[in-house]
């Protein structure tokens, strides 16, 4: 086949230009650290990359949601602990007050202490965390105990609609954050404590007996609620460790899909550089001489 100077020159140029093109691609990969810069480089990889990214975002978000759950559960736990110790003390006082050898002054003193404990219970019931009442279920802007003396609870405390302050921890899975308001600081509790004070002031031991039974029942309900909270808390810990693992796995999958193997790219680049130099050198040697140099 007949070859002319212009063909040689054009070929040389084209080959050098495509060598530059390959080096340019390798440089892109090296500076971004990613195998693909646009979807057409590898459409399937691009699609998967988008989906893995979204997965990672949702796992990170669920981890953030968990901190809110911790806040609620930890604060509910400490509130209930405080209420429990107050009720224990009241029980002791009731037992003490059942002693018929007490004078009226003694009984009044006991009643005063019960009154103080009652106020403490009201304050605990109306605990606020970051401006929200945690013992009123969903209805976080309104206090569960609306009136202090004598204590009256809010009207909607018994409604089941407010008993689900839930937080999403996984796709479609929510954990309840609150304790059931009806089981913790309910009207019965305050009625009992109020009844105890009245019975003490009047010196009515039979009333005190029935109050004691009712008090025991209230304490049992509270304790059951506390163990339920404990169980939920354990479940929360399990969810948390699972999410942590998921986060690591998702990051790894994303990286496997998109990230480039640095060592390989650097080696390819070095290779391509030497090929490029060879092309330049050979090209220059071919395109220069022609017959004119040799004719006299």
């Amino acid at each position, binding site marked *: 086949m007949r070859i002319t100077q212009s063909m040689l020159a054009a070929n040389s140029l084209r080959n050098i230009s495509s060598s530059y093109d390959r080096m340019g691609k390798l440089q892109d990969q090296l500076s971004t650290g990613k195998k693909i810069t646009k979807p057409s480089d*590898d459409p399937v990889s691009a699609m998967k990359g*988008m989906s893995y990214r979204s997965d990672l975002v949702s796992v990170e978000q669920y981890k953030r949601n968990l901190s809110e759950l911790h806040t609620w559960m930890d604060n509910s736990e400490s509130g209930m602990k405080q209420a429990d110790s107050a009720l224990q003390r009241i029980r002791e006082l009731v037992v003490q007050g059942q002693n018929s050898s007490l004078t009226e002054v003694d009984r009044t003193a006991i009643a005063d202490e019960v009154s103080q404990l009652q106020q403490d219970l009201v304050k605990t019931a109306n605990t606020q965390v970051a401006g929200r009442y945690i013992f009123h*279920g969903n209805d976080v802007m309104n206090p569960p105990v609306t009136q202090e003396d004598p204590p009256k609870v809010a009207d909607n405390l018994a409604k089941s609609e407010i008993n689900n302050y839930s937080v999403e921890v996984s796709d479609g899975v929510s954990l309840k954050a609150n304790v059931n308001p009806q089981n913790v600081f309910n009207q019965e509790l305050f009625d009992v404590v109020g009844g105890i004070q009245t019975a003490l002031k009047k010196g009515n031991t039979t009333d005190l007996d029935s109050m004691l039974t009712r008090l025991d029942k209230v304490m049992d309900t509270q304790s059951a609620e506390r163990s339920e909270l404990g169980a939920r808390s354990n479940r929360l810990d399990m969810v948390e460790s699972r999410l942590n693992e998921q986060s690591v796995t998702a990051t790894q999958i994303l990286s496997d899909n998109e990230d480039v193997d640095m060592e390989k790219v650097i080696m390819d680049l070095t290779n391509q550089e030497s090929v490029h130099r060879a092309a330049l050198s050979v090209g220059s040697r071919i395109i220069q001489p022609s017959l004119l140099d040799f004719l006299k």
Partner: protein
Amino acid sequence: MRSTFMGLETARRGMFTQQSALYTTGQNVANASTPGYTRQRVNFAQTEPYPGVGMNMPQLPGQMGTGVKAESVQRIRESFLDVQYRGENNKAGYWQARSDALSKMESIMNEPSDSGLSTVMDQFWQSLQDLAVDPTNAGARSVVRQRGEAVGDTFNYLSNSLSAVKRDQKDQVDVTVKEINSVVYQLDQINKQIGSVEPHGMLPNDLYDERDRLVDQLSSLVNIKVDYVKSGGNADPKAEGKAVIKLVDDNGSEQGVLLSNAGYNKLNVNYKGADDSVNTITVGAQTIDFSKMNSSGKLRALIESYGYEKDGQSTGIYSDMLNELDNMAYTFAKEFNDVHASGLSPNEIAAGKNDEIPFFSGASRADVAFIIDNTGSMTVPINNVKTNINNFASMLKDQGIEANLGLVTYGEVGETGGDPAKNALTTDISQFVNYVNSITMTGGGDTPESGLEAIMDPNNGAISYDAATGDLKHIILVTDAPVHDVTDGKSTYSITDVANALLQKGIRLHVVTDLSNTQLQGLSDPTGGLFIDINSPDFGTQLQKIATNITNDIGSKKGYASRIDVSQAIKDSLDNIATATGSVPSAATLGDSSNVKALADVINQPFDYGNNSEQSDFRNYYQNVIGGMGVLSQEATRLTTNSTTLQQSVDQKRQSVSSVSLDEEMTNMIQFQQAYNASARMITLQDELLDKIINGMGTGGR
């Protein structure tokens, strides 16, 4: 009898011919780098031998040659390679242009990245989750609104950028058409010039070169076939003739004539398809339907990216992507709005009722046509409309929607004042009140009136109002009587046909009538409009219901991605974001986050995003769209590389035949130079011979 000076003449002919060969060599060397130059060669031929046969021929032993002549100067070119090259060039032109368009689209969509639509939606979801965890947190609400606005902004940006590039494609199409017409015009000029040179028996090589170069340029733009028609007169048999260029499709069948013996035809692209897309191409007087034309080339690639009409719809790379964006934005906004409207925001909880607030809005103007029955019994409703219209308009204004009101009055067609009469749309409420004031009551005759005419009349019916794309379109039909339809013979329209026509145009029709008039529900129910009691004592509240329906309408799907924005209600107050579930408005609490969770979940719910009865969630659908675009782009890049390689390979073969090799020219030059020297030596010899004859003969013995 031989002539004395024959040898001299033979040598002289030799010298001249070699000299012309040297001139041609010089010409080749000078043009070695001219683009499109084909090397030329002198064809040597022997001159006629002496003697010729005839009655008076001298008796000589055999015929003697008389020298050489330069018969013609010919281009060395293989025309089959030209045909091959043009075919490859055509394909390369197509794939190159298509690959450019797709890569521009890829850089606009910018996926996968940290700043594309996918990330923005993820961030929106995150903000909703943060709000779900603490619905009372005003900061979290603010972030939700901000991220919602970011979603709207991203859709707007993508839609606007794609539309801008689409307009650029249109400009490019126009430029390409101009280029085609200019090249064809130049070819026509060259044809004429060739036609004036060839009959003289000469070969205009430079014109041929120029013509081939132009045809190569044209072949990358459109698919063409070139034939040659011999010139008459005394044309050399090697003459190529005039070119006839026809537009062909990929199977080779003709579609139009660009250049012929008689002259040239202009090519024109017509933008009369749906949405200003291309529907036909005209070449001279011939019209070709673009969707049936499958001839490749740069022009076709550009039109395919801009958009052309197929089966009544506009389709094309950019049109399709804009449609996808519109579909996604519209479906998402509609579903999101539905969930949001069913929930309760802090403001609604405080008020104790559900206002059905939309989160996303879609339009800034609503064209509302009131169709009012003007028969005698309608005085009270007409007054009601007048007194409540200002409130109606300001309710819309509060939601960021401007009311563009129109009035059509009707009675019984055929009676005086009974034909439908239309007033122009106006945003001036007092002007509208003037219209209503100037309603003159007519008789009415039998109870059904010509309501369907008032809707459908092509000149005076409400359907003839010219609404801008993106405006909401509503009709409010106020009448106390049923309407004539096909069944009672006094109308040419039927209720179902009218409802279908309204649906097709995206118009909602609300009916304000007596509640027993169930015939008219056939108009309001299918179109999504309300059915309101005309006899209600509080007409204002009824109109407010219609106003709420209008503000919850996000308009038509077309172009929605460029209009989507957070609604005015949400922009005005963060406490309008509906967090709590709306099932029992009176028992809702501020800590209830179930509606926000449902809102966050809208992104994960399967809907028909593609308008093709297939369900998938937002992320999956968007990934499919991006994946599809990636595949198209990858294919285009790959085929560009392939066709360019083929084109270059054919070009190599062409160059191999036609381009100038300096070594070869130098060798030829030596050859011609030596031949010239030899002929010159012959002349010297002849001179010596003649000298002998003239000066040496007949001087014997002196």
